[in-house]
């Protein structure tokens, strides 16, 4: 069907705190070309049709993590979600990421999410004088960081996690814990003990009950549950 146009129906969460007493779901349709392959393409067309619809977007290729939203009940990136992955004929339901305060429409306030991320000190701590060229790792040690460093902080995982919904101020959340393990696993980091001390806490780490919603939704295919398991394993090895 080259360049065939077709109509796609949407149900979009709308809320403008300056105007609306409460949020509502808006039914809206848009004409799409066959070249509109991703959900974000469709949303850009929607925005051209009704410019009051607000959402974040930037790189449109799954690297910046800004267009994370709840798509038909599951968190994901609009730019990585293919239009042909939706069941035909049914409206596509878009809501903001659950559990975070809504600023407007699909835009949420990520302050709490980044507070937790910052709390794990997401940077290399090494008190040795920097070497002339760089801090080297063996290929095996470097291998350990694969599946950890790729996180784009889109917050799909943490906002899919009930433990984060109940305790966003105390539980670090899957994204933060994945980042924490990224530095715990790094052989160039010298603060492993302090990092483990910081996480050995009923709230910060042990709110995770391994339900794996984070793994289910991660648009980059990462596995925060596995990283959390490895942090726990390191704590056990340290304690026994």
């Amino acid at each position, binding site marked *: 069907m080259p360049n065939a146009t077709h109509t796609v129906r949407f149900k979009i969460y709308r809320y403008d705190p300056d105007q609306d007493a409460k949020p509502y779901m808006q039914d809206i349709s848009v004409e799409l070309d066959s070249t509109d392959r991703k959900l974000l393409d469709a949303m850009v067309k929607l925005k051209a049709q009704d410019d009051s619809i607000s959402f974040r977007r930037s790189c449109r290729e799954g690297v910046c993590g800004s267009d994370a939203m709840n798509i038909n009940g599951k968190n994901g990136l609009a730019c990585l979600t293919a239009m042909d992955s939706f069941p035909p004929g049914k409206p596509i339901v878009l809501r903001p990421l659950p559990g975070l305060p809504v600023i407007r429409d699909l835009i949420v306030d990520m302050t709490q999410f980044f507070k937790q991320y910052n709390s794990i000190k997401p940077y290399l701590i090494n008190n040795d004088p920097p070497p002339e060229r760089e801090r080297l790792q063996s290929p095996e040690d470097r291998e350990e960081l694969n599946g950890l460093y790729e996180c784009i902080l889109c917050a799909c995982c943490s906002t899919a996690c009930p433990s984060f919904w109940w305790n966003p*101020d105390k539980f670090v959340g899957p994204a933060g814990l994945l980042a924490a393990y990224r530095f715990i696993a790094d052989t160039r980091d010298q603060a492993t003990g302090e990092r483990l001390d910081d996480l050995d*806490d009923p709230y910060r780490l*042990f709110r995770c009950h391994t339900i794996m919603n984070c793994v289910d939704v991660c648009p980059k295919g990462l596995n925060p549950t596995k990283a959390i398991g490895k942090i726990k394993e390191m704590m056990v090895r340290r304690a026994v």
Partner: protein
Amino acid sequence: MKRLVVGAHYGLMDWLAQRITGIVMAAYTLLMFAAMLGGAAASRQAWHDFMANGFIRFVSFLFILSLCYHAWVGVRDIWMDYVQPAAIRVTLHVLTLLALTGYAGWAVQILWRL
């Protein structure tokens, strides 16, 4: 004083204990199933003799302790998730501990008088 505080520095041992007590309970359940298939519950007398056996008393006691510890960690987690005021939470923690301790004593008393 309303500042948020975290950093109680416990949790690992409870998490580990919950796993270990889970394994103990699973092993005990399998043992019970095997015993029942083997006719241990064929009659009241057979069941009585089975439960009065020294080894079964020993593992039943471990099962009850495991159950109570496992339940303590799990129920405490529920209070921590859903009950925010610290005064109510500590009350619920204490009540849970007292109830589980009482249940453990009561169950042991039932099993060991056989």
